[in-house]
Every structure is written in structure tokens, then in C-alpha cells.
């Protein structure tokens, strides 16, 4: 059973987290996530990817762009996954590729979550004309076909590089999160404790930051995870289509170069399969973690 983010009882969730907080030294949300079996597997997988990314220079036997080996070789003891058409080590590229995916996920996830929060919170709290204008942009962001827009933006931009990809993904990806946060704040802002804060003399900014946002933490985490996952997928897709920077080592560019370099004709399955598999595993880890997040928001799914 999945819970749509719109129906999450974020306050109850926060309270459970605070309770779990009190009973251990770890943050409460972490305790709840950790108790969910599937989520634990997902978290361990993600942790493994992070370790690999951080320790890439240690783990990878060669530099990712070092092209002094024989071209298009099959797997061997020296090159576990073979070499590329330009004579680079596929295994080393695979290891460094984890960095790109995670950085894109992290940065684009953070950026689009920030935009979504700023837009969603402002629209939902202030309502009125401000809301109407911002909602128009949110809806615009939702109806614009994302993939073509990404391709156009990435294709026509004068510079190429990871930064561009991140910007493209952020620009196209914030709207969904903004809509959910707007809906949530609209229900939260009518709570009596918000009125009480006004009577206590608190300013609007303080009310949003201290009364509302803490009750939305889970929603923000969910939004971030979704955005990060989308960004990782989008980066791989754009790079695979050849719209990335060919100098960046990423699983997408690997796939792109493998198909251009004739991996199929030379029978280099490992070159073709490895980046796809790595990507699939990373996506799986996010999906597994989502089970835990569902459990966070729905007490019945919690492993008590």
C-alpha cells in the first residue's frame, strides 16, 4: 500500500519521530526507517553507493579517462569489465560514474526541493493573488512536457557540463513538489495553533519556520527523495541521448559511448550491461527506501 503524499498525516509523523528520538540517540525518523526491513536494505545499498563514490580514487584501478589500454577488449584480469573503444577501463568508469549520479541527485534534489518549498509555502500561506500567480506557474510547470523541454534546453544550451544538466533538471522538476507542499500548508495554516501563534505576536516568517515547517519534515524528505531519483534518471537519460558533456564520466555517457562504440557488434556485453545494472540498483535502493517512508506516514505499516 502506498500513501499519496497529499494524505500524509505529517504532524502525527513528526510526533512519532520525536518519540522515537527520546528512546534512542539516533534521530527518530531514522529509527523508524531502519526498523522497516525493505527500507533497511535500500539504505544499506545507498550507503554502499555513497562509499564507492567517496572512495572512487581508491577503489578504481585506473583513472576513468586514462586511454592507454587496448581498445574494445573483453573482460580480463587487468580490466574486469573490459575496455572502451577508446581504450579506457570500463570498471574504473563505472566506479567514478557513481559520483556523477549521486552528485546530480543530491544537488538537483536540494535545489528543486528549495524552489518547491519557497514557491509552495509562499503560495499556500499567503493565498489570494500571490497564490493565484504562483499556482499558475506551478501548473505550467506540471503541464509542460518535461522530456522534450529537457532535450531542447540541453540541446541548445551554449555550454555543456554537469552544471547545465543539474539546472535543466531543477527547472523542470520543482513543480510537483511545490504543488504537494502548497496543499499541505493550506491544511496546516488553518490549525488553531497557527492562530495561537499570531495571537502570541509571532511574525509570519517565524510562524512558517517554527510552527509549520517542522510539521512538514517528512513531506520534505519524501519530496527530496523523489526529486533526487528523478534527477539521477534524467541525467542518465540525457547523457545516453548524447546531450550530456562527453567529458563527464557518468553511467549515462557510458551507455551512450558503449552503443556508439559498437559494444554490441564487438560482443562487449559487460560494457553495455554494467552501467545499466548500476543505475537499476541505485534506483532500486531509492524504491526500497520509499517503503520505509510509506511506513513513516502510515503507522499501520510500521514494523513495531
Amino acid at each position: 500500500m502506498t500513501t499519496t503524499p497529499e494524505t500524509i498525516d505529517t504532524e502525527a509523523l513528526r510526533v512519532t519521530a520525536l518519540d522515537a528520538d527520546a528512546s534512542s540517540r539516533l534521530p527518530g525518523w531514522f529509527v523508524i526507517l531502519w526498523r522497516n526491513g525493505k527500507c533497511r536494505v535500500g539504505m544499506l545499498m545507498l550507503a554502499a553507493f555513497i562509499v564507492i563514490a567517496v572512495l572512487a580514487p581508491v577503489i578504481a584501478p585506473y583513472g576513468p579517462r586514462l586511454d592507454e589500454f587496448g581498445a574494445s577488449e573483453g573482460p580480463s584480469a587487468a580490466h574486469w569489465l573490459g575496455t572502451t573503444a577508446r581504450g579506457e577501463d570500463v570498471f574504473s568508469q563505472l566506479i567514478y560514474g557513481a559520483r556523477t549520479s549521486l552528485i546530480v541527485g543530491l544537488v538537483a534534489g536540494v535545489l528543486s526541493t528549495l524552489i518547491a518549498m519557497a514557491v509552495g509555502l509562499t503560495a499556500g500561506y499567503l493565498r489570494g493573488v500571490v497564490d493565484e500567480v504562483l499556482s499558475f506557474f506551478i501548473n505550467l510547470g506540471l503541464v509542460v512536457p518535461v522530456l522534450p523541454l529537457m532535450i531542447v534546453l540541453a540541446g541548445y544550451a551554449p555550454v555543456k557540463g554537469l552544471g547545465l544538466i543539474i539546472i535543466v533538471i531543477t527547472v523542470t522538476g520543482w513543480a510537483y513538489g511545490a504543488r504537494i507542499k502548497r496543499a499541505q500548508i493550506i491544511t496546516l495554516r488553518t490549525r488553531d495553533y497557527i492562530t495561537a501563534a499570531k495571537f502570541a505576536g509571532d511574525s509570519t516568517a517565524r510562524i512558517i519556520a517554527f510552527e509549520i515547517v517542522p510539521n512538514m519534515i517528512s513531506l520534505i524528505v519524501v519530496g527530496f527523495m523523489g526529486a533526487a531519483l528523478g534527477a539521477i534518471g534524467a541525467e542518465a537519460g540525457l547523457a545516453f541521448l548524447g546531450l550530456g558533456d562527453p567529458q563527464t564520466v557518468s553511467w549515462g555517457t557510458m551507455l551512450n559511448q558503449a552503443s556508439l562504440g559498437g559494444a554490441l557488434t564487438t560482443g562487449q556485453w559487460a560494457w553495455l550491461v554494467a552501467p545499466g545494472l548500476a543505475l537499476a540498483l541505485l534506483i532500486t535502493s531509492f524504491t526500497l527506501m520509499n517503503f520505509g517512508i510509506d511506513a513513516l506516514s502510515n503507522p499501520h505499516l510500521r514494523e513495531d
Partner: protein
Amino acid sequence: MALLEVRDLSVTYSPRDSAAVRAVDRVSFEVHDGEFVGLLGESGCGKSTLGNAVLRLLDRPAAITGGTIRFDGQDVTTTPEDDLRSLRWVDLSTVFQSSMNSLNPVITVRRQFADTFEAHSDALGNDLDVDARATELLEMVSLDRSVLSRFPHELSGGMKQRVALALALALEPRFVLLDEPTTGLDVVVQRDILDRLRVLQARLGFAVLFISHDLGTVMELADRVMVMYAGEIVEDQPAAEMVTRHLHPYSAGLLGSYADPRDQVVEVEFIPGRPPDLSQPHAGCLFQPRCPVAVDACRTVHPELLPASLGQVRCLLVEQSGDARVVLEKAAELRRRDQVFAAGLSERADAEPVLVVDGVSKVYKTRRGLNTTLTQAVDDVSFALRPGQVTALVGQSGSGKTTIARILTGVERPTAGSVRFKDEPVDHLGRGALRKYRRHVQLVFQDPFSALNPTRTVAYALSRPLRNHLGLTGAEARARAAELLETVGLSPADQYLDKLPHQLSGGQRQRVVIARALAPEPEVVVADEPISMLDVSIRAEIIALLDQLVRDRGIAMLYITHDLLSARLLADEVMVLNQGVMVERGPTLDVIAEAKDPYTRKLLAAIPRPGARDIA
């Protein structure tokens, strides 16, 4: 053989993070065919847990840890979930307080009926005329057939709860569990639904287990009443017997919260303290710490549920003494000393008003597409609030009470008329001036569960007004917050300062809400139904607290309510509002005793009078 037989049933919550709680402890009872049984007790006494256990609706971390449940001779204690499904709804059905919110929001009422019929077509046959049957069911709960084509969000809370009741009765069950089915609804609506329910029950002959903390209502409806305390049944008597000759001190305490507001002198009692923590073992009687007549043996000997009078009672005193009533009368005497709140004839001193409302009207414009509709929420209302006095504002839902509160507090601006605070007009304040004005005018909310931010501690909640309005910070603010908690009876304050709202009971939360309203030392307090969400047994306590604060601190209070008994206890003056117009006003006793307005009369009629059914 009884329809429902429960033997030695125990239910334990075993949460992962805290100690196990024995929420239901070796409970035995029976419900016969067509019998209407009430189950009473304060919140947290295990009533809902027991009800859910009987229907096998318990969820982790709760589990049945002993005993048996037999329905119609069949043991259902361990029946697999799949076999239960055919039993539920067809033979056993239920309405909860939250049932109205569990209607599917995206389908019409007709569809909800059709789905219910379809899910149980084996019991009904396939050629059922959905509309005809649904109309018949809706008529049973006094709803028009036009409701069929509406969506849940187009219905009021009361209407939704009626639909839920009609759905529960759709398959003519033999047993219906009602868990606080009308709590949270308008008193008059509650009354309507319950009266209807009683008539239906008599006609269709289903058995009912009616769970409520509102003893007056239960006594009036039920044939037999069971009182539950701390997971145990402490008394079980026929309803008429319970009203006049109850034996357990707890039952006596619960009954003490009722009185007729038309009497010259009105007294209500309350039971101080809270039910015990069931995760700890207790020797002796569980009620002992709160019992006014406890003897030494009560601390060590755990009483059994033994036959007494026409039913059963769990109390050592009743066991020992030949005539337990004498003991109870003594208890009542004892309690009267400090646990009674009384309202006599109050004499009104005419102090200078602090807040004057003069000819105020409010018209709301609502735009739906191109049509603009005007709603006259408040129509030419004038009154004044005086220090040290309470003015009650009574009226049906939608009569404009809250709009008046919003205008008083500057949340809303009046369309016409003026509001003056100490001769300063306050009806059109700008942002900054409004913030300053609110130092003097504070609010107490209805729902203690939404009035406190669930993620902020008590100390934080209290520190904000202290800092913003009085400029207190740090240790100073904390010390003042502690003082405030002591003032509202949360003592020792250190125990409460760092608690989160969910660690407090409803009554304790409401005390925190009151403390927060008092923090900036306001001259005017608007209390919007501050006790309607609380257990009946602690309402009197909160009323007593408000009364004391008003008199001690010279606060002018506007007390908004549906509840004439509390208005009678607290208010010096009553105003009755009907569709935005003030239809009655005057000294409380005069207005209540000689009610002229039809709504005021309805409110009076809605006050439960335990035992009334037998007299009538």
C-alpha cells in the same frame, strides 16, 4: 444463551518503545438479543479497546491476551480474518466517532450504499433495488432521498454520521457497536440522532453496545449500564438503578457532573486526578488514589466484581457494609468540600466596560464562478464586556458566534458598526496596531488537540507570548511560564514545561492553552467552546478554573458555548444568537429559566437528564 458473551477478556498493547499496557483486564459481560447496553468511563479507560476487541478490530500493537468472545454461540476469539468478514456488517456492525470521515470522498452516497449491498450480495440476493432500499434506510435516520446523489463533502458532519448509521444498519445486523457516535457534533444534532437511534433500535430489535464518556446520554438511552475504570468493569446495573442507586464511588463521581441549569442553585462535582498508568502493576483498588471514601484495605486488596443490588459492583466498601448507600452519601459530603463547583444567584456589579461592541454587522461575500452570494453572518449586534464578568454567547452552529469572536479579536473587520477597547476603536487596525491590541485580547480554543503545535514543548508555547508581548526572555520567561502553569493547576510545573502536547491528557492540554492565553496578562479573553471537546468528568474542573481566573484577575470574558449548564455555572449574562441576530439576552438564570427563543428551548431539551426515560 446471550447473543454476545465475553469471558475474562484481556487486551494488552505491547508497543516497541514502551512498557506493555493492560488496557482491558479480565472483563466479562453479556449482551442479549435486542438489549441496549451502555459502556461508560473517562477517556483512556479502555472502552474503545474493549469494543474493538469484541469486533476483532484490534490492530498492532494491541492483541487479545486472554479470554473468549462468543457471538451467537460461536467462538470468534480466534476465527480467521476471512471468516470474520462475512460475520461483520451482516451480523455485527459499527459506527465510530470518525465514521463520518471514513465515507469514501469520491463517490456519491448512492454508490456507497450500492457498494455495501454488492459486497454482501450473498446475504441480500442480487435483485435488490438499491435506490428503494437506500431511501428506506435514509428515511430511518431522518435524511431526505436527495442525499443519495450527493458527495460526502457536500454534507454536514451530522448528516454524514447519519449516513454512516444508515450504512451500518443496511444489512439488518443483530449487534451494533456504537463508539462515541455523536461526540463532536452540535448538541442539538446529537440529540436528534440519538433519539432516532433509540426508536430504530426498539423497532428493528438489534442489540447495541453504546460506548460514551457522556453518562447522561447513556443513562437515558440504555437498558443496562456498565462503568469501566482502568481496564476493568467496576459496576454493572440496570440504567434506572444506576441513576438513583449506583453503588461505586466512581459511578457517583461521574454522575455528579450533571445538574439542571434551571435550578436556583446548581452544583456539579468532579473527580480530581486521572486514571492510573496501566503499564505499572498496582496492588489494591485501582480507583483508590482518587476515591474519597477509600479505607486502608483498599491500598492492598484488589476488589472483585461481585453481585450487589440488581447488578454487580467492584468495591470493598460495598462488599463489607450492609448498606453501601450510607457510605456513598458520606462520600458525597466529603467531596462537596473541595470538588464541587456551584453557581448560585450572582449579583452583577456594574463595572466600567473594557470592550464595547456597537451595532456590529458582518456580511460575507462568497464568489462561486460568476455568482456572488451575500451572507449576513452578524446583524446589528451590540454588547459590552466588563472586567471580572463572564458573558456567554449561545447559539446554533452557523449562527454567527465565531464571527463575533473574530471581529472582537481583530481577525475580521465588521461591515458596519464599531468595536471599542477602552474607548479606542479596534475594528480597523493595521498590522502593527493589531499585534499590540492582541496583547490585551486573547483566545482560548475549542479543540485542545489542534490548539497546541504537536512538535513544540509547553515551555516553547508559553514563551512566545511572554517574549513578544512582555519582552521576557530566557530564564525569566521560563520562570514566568512555570508560574503560569501553577496558576492553571499544573503543578509541579517542572514536570510539564518540557513535555510535548501528546504527552498530556486533553484536560491538561486545555490548561496549557488557558495558561498561554493568560501569558500576556490580557484584559479580555474570548473562550470559544473551551470544554466541548473534553470529557464530561473534567469539564467542571476547567469551568472552575476559568471562573477563578476571571474573578481573581478581573478579566472580561466572552464565553461561547452550546452548553447551557456550563453557561449557567460560569456566566453572569447570556446572549442568544440566531442567524446573526441577538434574540435573547439577560442575567443567566432569567434567560435559561424563561427561555423564549425556540433554539434556546431546543438546547434545554437537549441536556441529558439521567433516568428521564423511566419517568416519562
